[in-house]
């Protein structure tokens, strides 16, 4: 039980135990490394899959209750197994390929969208010590990986051979390029204060006060940019179903569609987790209060709260138009981001 609070020690003990095991039985160390890599990858993949199913269910339930409905109720108690059933159905579906599609690209697109979404999990700090790899360039890595997914979306849009998909892909490209800038600017303030790009360090430095107190504007900017970044309503113009049918994934079905879906929700979790890490103190409890919950729970609670905000936006607001999205990004978010950095810099200099 205590180890749950002191996860650093837990990890150390496991590592020591495994190293001793290797030494005792004369197993070469590379085997250990490979095994650890495989296990960690398995855990991450498993988490992504299970978490996505939960998020999809949560989304449907939140939407339903906001709209005076009940949502899925038939599979399992209050429909908790609904997404499992849906996932099985999607996986078992026939694999269709439109005649006009570019076969290779059409096949690759979902993978290219899905892989970066998974890759971003590498730098999420769950709890002290529990982080797949605390990279020195953590935040930068995140931004870099986050923009790879867009290539997959453009590929999907182009290779489907459908004009709606093409429009969706193009919109998506424009959107992500613009909002990447706003996102970087909103994060910069935090990085300036923390003085590090390393996720672990950023969390550690929020021991006394969360950065949301120094960076309220940055937090809001990040929320908006992140909503656009993962194509969520009100910025969901790449898939805008009332305009473009389903946008870039109009022609996808079965397991390929499931991968897009998985990637979308995996992304939502990532941006929420990053938001937690950068602005809400990551796995730290509320400063000044006794630690009641283990750090990992703190992290999850905060992250799901942010996820809930994203869902809340989606079920409340209409969709913006594509040109307004650009205007909003370049003429509103980016200047505000600069102002935010300017103020942060000034305050730091004066101090």
């Amino acid at each position, binding site marked *: 039980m205590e180890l749950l609070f002191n996860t650093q020690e837990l990890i150390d003990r496991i590592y020591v135990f495994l190293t001793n095991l290797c030494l005792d039985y004369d197993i070469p160390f590379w085997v250990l490394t490979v095994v650890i890599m495989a296990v960690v990858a398995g855990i991450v993949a498993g988490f992504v899959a299970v978490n996505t199913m939960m998020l999809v269910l949560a989304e449907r339930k939140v939407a339903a209750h906001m709209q005076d*409905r009940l949502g899925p109720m038939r599979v399992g108690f209050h429909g908790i197994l609904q997404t499992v059933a849906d996932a099985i159905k999607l996986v078992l579906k026939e694999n269709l390929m439109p005649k006009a599609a570019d076969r290779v690209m059409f096949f690759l697109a979902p993978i290219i969208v899905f892989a970066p979404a998974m890759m971003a999990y590498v730098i999420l700090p769950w709890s002290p010590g529990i982080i797949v790899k605390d990279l020195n360039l953590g935040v930068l890595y995140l931004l870099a990986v986050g923009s790879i997914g867009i290539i997959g979306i453009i590929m999907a849009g182009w290779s489907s051979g459908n004009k709606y998909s093409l429009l969706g892909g193009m919109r998506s490209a424009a959107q992500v390029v613009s909002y990447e800038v706003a996102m970087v600017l909103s994060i910069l303030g935090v990085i300036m204060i923390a003085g590090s790009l390393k996720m672990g360090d950023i969390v550690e430095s929020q021991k006394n006060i969360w950065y949301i107190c120094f960076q309220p504007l940055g937090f809001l900017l990040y929320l908006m940019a992140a909503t656009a970044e993962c194509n969520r309503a009100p910025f969901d113009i790449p898939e805008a179903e009332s305009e473009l049918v389903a946008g870039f994934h109009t022609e996808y079905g079965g397991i390929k569609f499931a991968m897009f879906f998985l990637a979308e929700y995996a992304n939502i979790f990532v941006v929420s987790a990053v938001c937690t890490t950068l602005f809400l103190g990551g796995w730290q409890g509320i400063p000044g209060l006794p630690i009641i919950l283990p750090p990992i729970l703190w992290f999850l609670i905060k992250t799901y709260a942010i996820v809930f905000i994203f869902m809340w936006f989606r079920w409340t607001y*209409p969709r913006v138009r*594509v040109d*307004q999205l650009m205007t909003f990004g370049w003429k509103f978010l980016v200047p505000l981001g600069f102002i935010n950095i300017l103020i942060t810099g000034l305050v730091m200099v004066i101090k």
Partner: protein
Amino acid sequence: MPETQEMIINMGPQHPSTHGVLRLVLNLDGEIITKVTPDIGYLHRGIEKLAEDMTYAQFLPVTDRLDYLAAVSNNLAYCLAVEKLLGLEVPKRASYIRVILTELNRIASHLVWIGTHALDIGAYTPFLYAFREREAILDIYELFCGARFTTSCFRIGGLPQDIPAGFVEKVEKFVKIFPKKVDEYEALLTKNEIWLRRTQFVGIISAEDGINYSLSGPSLRGSGVKWDIRKAEPYCVYDELEFDIPTGRGVGDVYDRYLVRMEEMRQSCKIVKQAIAKIPGGDFIANAAKIVPPPKERVLTDIEALIHHFKLVVEGFKPPKKEVYACIEAPKGELGFYIVSDGSNKPYRLKIRPPSFANLQSIYKMIEGGMMVADVVAIIGSLDIVLGEIDR
């Protein structure tokens, strides 16, 4: 400079937001529309031709299928046209109940409109809220005539049956809670910045153009023209009821049409409130032996009534040789029936003037000035078309 080319995109007939089976051929320059060509006829069922092979009473259920969201209004327009042809006087009680039901129908139709229009623009939640209230209206219809959607709830000369017990209470209850629900939709949309940006100055049509394109109903009132058939040529008992004609803020854009319809729902609510308090006693159907079949109890006992009943069912009535046009203010605009009678028991020709059909053609005008794909969706939504009556 490489040569560029416009992209032609088929919007519909299978598309989530063309409200049925409308097909629009869009010429796109990037996202901006240079030309739009509506293509209609995917829901053509030959209703006008069907009428020529049916007696006047038989055709009534078919009118439900015109504007299926406003079946009651269609019934009323058809009944009024035939009654005008026959010169038949409808009892006051029937007229009042007709007004209540058609005004509720206007609310129901507008509720579907606000739901789908918001959905087109990307707001999901008002859709479900609107349908929640619509359900209450459909319950009232079910109570009155037994059907929720394709009501066929009037007969030539009046109503098929009197209002049942509990009807008045149910309507009163609805009228009482409904304005609060409208406030709720408005809280989600009316002043929402995103909604404003999506609807203001989109799809503008001036009052003059609106008249020239024969727009009618809320779409015309959105351009600032105070034209409402309920006031201009009152039918039923609208001249005895008080209500206002909302006209929006006079720009003629999507937002104006939105404001007009929102206010119309409140006005309809007001009309229902007055009418329900004023329902007079008396017959629910005209006492005209050659037109209206005798009541069932008499048919069962009286041989003369039985003969009459047989004659009216088998042959129907024979109106005089005449041509009439009767129109009402349907939820979507002016709905008119033009009937040519050759003195036989079936119409020689029946022409329907559906509001959506006339309203749709103004899309050419509204699309001018660099509208985008997303705007087309908003414009179609704001016109509130129903393909059932466009294609007939």
